[in-house]
Structures are given as structure tokens and as C-alpha cells.
């Protein structure tokens, strides 16, 4: 893409952050972060705990003011009434009034936001909480609280949905449903900015990912771009002989009791034939994409090493 194309994409960006810094006393929580979220995408904001994800999201929702840098959300300043009216968010853990029912909690948020009662029923249905809507929030399980948080985020039928670790506390079925819901939001044309420390989650549901570590963005790419080359996973014996032969095809490294060779998966048959003809027993051979987890640790470790140097 040329400079002109890149420029027009940035002009269309729903979230555009440049050189964002947030300092708390002597602690630099966010350090020169650049981030762009484009319309209709599910953007994964990935980083370990304490990396600066929540601080960045709080700035995007106007809850805290940046120390420096520029932030534009939906073309306006974070926290402006017009911007908030088009943004739905759940920042950190879902926070509601414990003495009110889930329904009443949504009713009062609807009053603040000027949303119709009908929309409350719709979002409750969407997160599968209709049956428990009249129960007190304090009696909800962690997963139900999380789902109510997502319902509240969707209440305004927002263009931009900001979700901070939305699958926290959910059981496996709940996590699956939540990911499906987030994916659906993306396909409906909404833009989703999702923070997570779960690499697999981001890999499954996001189009693009920004990786933050120690307050700094270390990468921002499409998930596919980040994965890069593909590998073949080989389980063979004797392993040392197999490793020597596989080195002809590409770099080989050992991972548990398998060998991973960076080679075009289309050459799998050729690899297999080479090993078998050399008298090596092949018990497993399949392709493996580089896991985002590996990439994440490569990037964050490289950054730390650079910093230390």
C-alpha cells in the first residue's frame, strides 16, 4: 500500500493514537504508544498483566487524561458526549450496583444514555441473561457479571465496542460463547477493540493485533502477518538422524519430543519420502502454524534484550 493509501486508511480510523504517554508520579504506565483501529475490524490489544492495556483503554474512554500524545476516537476527543454516545465499553471488571437487579442496572444506564427500554431486552437476549435479569447483581456468578458488562457495552448500539479482557472468569463454554459473540459483532460491521492477555483468544477472534509490553507497543500487524512462515512438525526416530536430514529443508529446532522444520508445507510428501528412504521411522508429520504465543514471547523478549543492551 502506498503512502496515499496508508494516509486514507488512517483518516478513516475509528481510533487513532499517536505518541500516547501516561505517567503516574515516577511510573511510566504507557510510553509513546501508537495504535490505529480501522472500521469494522476486531482489533486485539495483547500484552501481559501490567503492560499498560487497561490504562490505554481508560484513556480511550475518557476516564483518565493522557500525560502527552494525541488521541482521537470516532473523530473526537475521548470522553466527549458525542463520542461516548457512540462507544460501548467494559473496562476492567464489570462494575454495577450490587443491590439492583441486572435489569435495573441496565435500566439506569439506559436512562443516562437515552436508550429505549426495548434495547434493554435485546441486549439481555443477546448475552443470554433474560431469565436471570430480575435477580440481584450481587447474586450473579462471575461469568454472568461479565455477560452483563458486555450487555451494558452494547446497550447504546455502539459503532465502537471496547472490551477489556471480556472472557475473564468465564468457564470454557462461556468463553466460547463470548468469543462467538465478539466475532459476530465484527461481522455486523461494528468495530471491536479487545484487550486480552490470552494469546489463543486473540489468535481466534481478531483481525489485527497490537502487542504491548512494559507500556510500549512492540508490534502492530494482521494476525496472519505476525504468524509469518509455517512449519512442519515431525516425530521420527532416531531423532538425531532425522534432525540431520531435515536440516536440508530448513532450520530445525526441537520442541518437546518433536522436531519443527521451517519449510513450505507443500513439501511434506518430499520430507516424508526423504526420511523413510533413509530408514527413519516417521510416526507423525503435519503442518503447524507459528503460534501467536511464540511470536509474542519472541517480540517481548527481543524488546527486553534490546532495552537491557
Amino acid at each position, binding site marked *: 500500500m502506498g503512502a496515499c493509501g496508508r494516509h486514507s486508511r488512517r483518516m478513516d480510523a475509528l481510533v487513532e493514537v499517536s505518541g500516547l504517554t501516561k505517567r503516574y508520579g515516577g511510573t511510566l504506565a504507557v510510553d509513546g504508544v501508537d495504535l490505529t483501529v480501522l472500521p469494522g475490524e476486531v482489533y486485539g490489544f495483547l500484552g501481559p498483566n501490567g503492560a499498560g492495556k487497561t490504562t490505554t483503554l*481508560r484513556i480511550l474512554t475518557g*476516564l483518565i487524561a493522557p500525560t502527552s500524545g494525541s488521541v482521537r476516537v470516532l473523530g473526537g476527543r475521548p470522553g466527549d458526549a458525542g463520542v461516548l454516545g457512540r462507544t460501548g465499553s467494559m*473496562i476492567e471488571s464489570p462494575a*454495577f450496583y450490587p443491590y439492583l437487579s441486572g435489569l*435495573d442496572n441496565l435500566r*439506569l444506564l439506559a*436512562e443516562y444514555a437515552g436508550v429505549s427500554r426495548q434495547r434493554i431486552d435485546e441486549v439481555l437476549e443477546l448475552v443470554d441473561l433474560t431469565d436471570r435479569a430480575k435477580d440481584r447483581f450481587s447474586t450473579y456468578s462471575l461469568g454472568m457479571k461479565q455477560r452483563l458488562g458486555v450487555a451494558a457495552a452494547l446497550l*447504546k448500539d455502539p459503532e465502537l465496542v471496547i472490551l477489556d479482557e471480556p472472557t475473564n472468569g468465564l468457564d470454557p463454554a462461556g468463553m466460547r460463547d463470548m468469543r462467538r459473540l465478539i466475532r459476530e459483532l465484527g461481522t455486523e460491521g461494528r468495530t471491536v477493540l479487545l484487550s486480552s492477555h490470552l494469546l489463543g483468544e486473540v489468535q481466534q477472534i481478531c483481525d489485527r493485533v497490537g502487542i504491548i509490553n512494559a507500556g510500549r507497543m512492540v508490534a502492530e500487524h494482521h494476525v496472519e502477518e505476525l504468524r509469518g512462515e509455517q512449519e512442519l512438525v515431525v516425530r521420527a526416530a532416531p531423532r538425531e538422524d532425522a534432525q540431520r536430514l531435515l536440516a536440508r529443508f530448513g532450520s530445525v529446532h526441537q520442541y518437546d519430543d518433536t522436531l519443527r522444520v521451517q519449510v513450505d508445507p507443500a513439501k511434506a510428501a518430499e520430507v516424508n519420502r526423504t526420511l523413510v528412504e533413509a530408514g527413519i521411522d516417521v510416526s507423525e508429520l503435519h503442518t503447524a502454524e507459528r503460534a501467536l504465543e511464540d511470536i509474542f514471547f519472541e517480540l517481548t523478549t527481543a524488546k527486553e534484550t534490546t532495552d537491557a543492551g
Partner: protein
Amino acid sequence: MLGSYRAEILKLRKRSAVWVLFGAGLVLSLIFGYLLPYLGYATGDDNPQTDGVPRAEILRGMLPARVIDNTIGGYPIFAGALALVLGAIVIGGEYTWGTLKTVLTQRPRRGTILGAQFLALGTMIALWVLGIFAACALCSLGIAAAENGSTTWPGIGDLLQGLAGGWLVLMMWCLAGAVLAVAFRNVALPIGLGVVWILGIETLLAGVVSSLLPSLKWLANVLPGTNAGSLVFGVTGMAAADAPPGVRDAVGGSRALLTLLAYCALFAVLATWTTRRRDVT
């Protein structure tokens, strides 16, 4: 603003602590305004409680003509402390539950939300005042009927002036609780500090100033509790000998009114300024 106000009213209406505080204020008013005096009256002059006070005088204190005295007599101290707790739990609860971030990420601006909260608290305080007045009015009417006492009511102007004065006293303490809650982002500490101030520190300060440091009387006379007591004294027109604890004529009614209005404005502005400027972490 209307939507935010309706949301705040919903929160207050459904919160049991709000009604428990109202119930405590109501019960205290009835016990000290009617139950104990009536027991004293009914058990005659032999009771030490009425020693030196003629029974007829006790009865007069419970009749409809003195309903405003009994409704707002306890506001500067006891009901004031309850109003401070109300302000602290309503505003401080937003911090302890983390709901402030949920509310602030809706459409309205921070100032609008805080304004709606104060308006809703003012509405709730008005309901408290009217509720306590209604209960006191019923008691005084019942006692008048039982004891063949006079059923003459105060003039409508006096009634309105008394109720408005009582509302202002409670609202001032409620806003004091709110601004402390904003300052400490908490519930317990504002309640502790506020109640200790109302029930102990102010009285202690006034005592020390009058006995040891008369030159600092002006300072004692600008304190919120002193002015709350003076306003109640002014709007009820009760005799100094009949005045309950905290009610006295330290300053004139008009000055007390202006001072309380100034405190209300100061507390509201401080809370709004802090809320608008501060990061919500």
C-alpha cells in the same frame, strides 16, 4: 440531565440503606419529640425527667402548634449526621463499587452526572423532611385529641419556612458527606470523620472558644454546625431553654441562612471540580 436525574432517583429509591437512614431519623424524631416527653407527661411530676418542668408545659411542647420544633429540632446534630452518611454512601459507593467508571462512560458529562446526583439527593432529603413532618403532625394531633389540647397549627408561612430551613440544614450536611466521599474516594472514612466532627469536634471547639479563647468566637460562628443550629433556632422561634442540643442563637437567622447556602455552594463546587479533573482509575 433529566435522564441522569431519573437514573439517580432509581438508584436511591431501590437502595435499602437510604430508607434505613430515613427510618432512623424518623424514629429518633418521634422518640425525642413525642415518646419520651409524653411518658414524662403521663407519669406526672414525680418522674425525675419532668422535675421542675410543669406538665402543662410538656404538653404544649407536643401539640400541633410546636410541630415544626419537633420536626426539625434534631436536624443540626442527629439527623444532620444521618444526612452526612447519606451523602457519603451515595457518592462514596460509586468509588468502592467501581460504578463511577460505568456511569462516566455513558453519554452525559461528569458535571451533569454529579449535578443529577445532588438533585436526586435534594429530592430524597425533601422526602425525609416531609415524611418526618407528617409523622410528627400525626403524633401531635393524636396527643392533642387524647389530652384535649389545642389543635391550632402554625401559619402556612411558618410551616414552609421551618421545613425549608430543615431541608437546607440536612442538605448542607449531605453535601458535606458527598464532598468528603469525593475527596477520599471511599465510604467509611468520610462517615467516620464527618460524624466525629458533627457529634464531637464542633461542640468541643465551641466550648473551648467560649471558655478559653473568646477572641476566636468569630471562628466558632462560621462553623457549619453552629449555623445549622442557629438557622433552626431562627425559623422555629423556640425559647433558648426549650432548645434541643445543637440548637442555639449563636448568630442571626439571616446570617445562618447565607452561611449555609455558602457551604452548600462550596461543597458542590469542590466535589464537581475534583470529579471533573481527576483520573478515574
